């Protein structure tokens, strides 16, 4: 009879074999799919929260102004005194105007033509129309301008502006022609002619809008300041700010208008002298080259 091995455990307790090795390795970690799933899930929640926040914080488009009120806004904008304009000079405007060479662009009346291509949804066009209207008002008169705002769903939503769709311009010095290709909802509005398209292809290889051609002497694409500067403002507030000395809107809008005025003065052989002979415009004309 073999002797029994001494058993550990309580005295008198039934003997049980000692486990020197675990039967099964204990589960010590997380399944491989948990981490990626958790990270992607958390990220999806964060993005959803951003979208909801964006939805609830995007302001509704402001209601366009009545024609009389629109005229008041344009008068305020165009009423920036020449002395202030001289003080501002280029202001904070980004000079995007480049000299170009081509057959002189003339309008239906045979005068040199400024050609604008843009769209109502486009926030950069919305920003650039303010100084463009101010600059062109120094040489002539707009009628039929209406207020609108850029797309609610694009970058810099609801930027207050005007539309050139349906507007006319008269001047003894030059012609102005504008094509607004789409409305603020992205619906087709006006179609550029094949000559317009050729012009854009020639001088605006990136196809950016707004595109402005000054009689084929100068051209530029894009906005000279950020539409962010007009965010949340009413049309009258923008016009008032542009007329207020020292405001960032004055520096951007009047500065951009001065640059475009200098380009137009080059087209019109510095006519009228009341506009083109100003020291600021003369200095900017030299800068344009």
């Amino acid at each position: 009879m073999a002797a029994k091995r001494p058993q550990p455990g309580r005295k008198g307790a039934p003997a049980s074999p000692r486990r020197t090795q675990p039967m099964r390795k204990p589960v010590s970690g997380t399944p491989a799919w948990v981490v990626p799933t958790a990270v992607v899930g958390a990220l999806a929640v964060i993005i959803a929260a951003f979208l909801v926040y964006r939805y609830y914080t995007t302001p509704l488009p402001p209601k366009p102004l009545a024609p009389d009120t629109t005229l008041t806004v344009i008068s305020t904008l165009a009423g920036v005194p020449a002395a202030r304009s001289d003080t501002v000079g280029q202001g904070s405007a980004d000079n995007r105007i480049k000299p170009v060479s081509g057959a002189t662009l003339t309008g239906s009346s045979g005068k040199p033509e400024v050609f604008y291509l843009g769209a109502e949804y486009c926030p950069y066009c919305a920003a650039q129309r303010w100084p463009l209207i101010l600059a062109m008002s120094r040489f002539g008169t707009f009628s039929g301008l209406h207020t609108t705002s850029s797309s609610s769903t694009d970058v810099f939503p609801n930027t207050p502006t005007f539309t050139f769709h349906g507007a006319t311009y008269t001047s003894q010095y030059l012609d102005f022609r504008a094509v607004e290709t789409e409305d603020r909802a992205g619906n087709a509005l006006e179609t550029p002619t094949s000559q317009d398209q050729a012009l854009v292809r020639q001088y605006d290889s990136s196809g950016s809008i707004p595109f402005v051609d000054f009689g084929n002497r100068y051209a530029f694409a894009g906005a000279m300041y950020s539409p962010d500067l007009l965010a949340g403002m009413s049309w009258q507030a923008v016009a008032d700010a542009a007329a207020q000395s020292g405001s960032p809107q004055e520096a951007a809008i009047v500065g951009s208008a001065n640059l475009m005025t200098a380009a137009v003065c080059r087209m019109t052989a510095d006519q009228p002298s009341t506009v083109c002979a100003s020291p600021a415009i003369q200095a900017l004309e030299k800068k344009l080259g």
Partner: protein
Amino acid sequence: MRLIALAASVAGIAVSIYLTAVHFAGVPLACPTGAAVNCEAVLSSPYGVIAATSVPTSVAGIVWFAISTILWLWPRGRLPLLWSTVGMVTVIYLVFIEIVRLGTVCVWCSVAHFLVLVIFIVALTRSVPQADAGGTA
């Protein structure tokens, strides 16, 4: 897993170099344009450059992915996880800018963000103890 992070880091360098080159060359970006997707709107916004400089944000991307490549070539402790966490927090901030501030998304930026996400997941997965194959949780 490490190879995935390494490949994502190198791909991130390539994407960031492309965006930087396009910025300085002033040529159009290969990117669809619409209301929801608009690379040009994002990259030409004030957030397209590092604050108070004219340096495009993509340069920061080149630096981040380059350091990430080095960290995955010679991984040391929790450094890859720390670095990828920094990247992931930055990505969340940039996505916030795109969605909330700008209301539009840049496809190329999203590709770079996805690569950071991949790297972060790899780093996090490596740092969490894994269950054995066939084990139950």
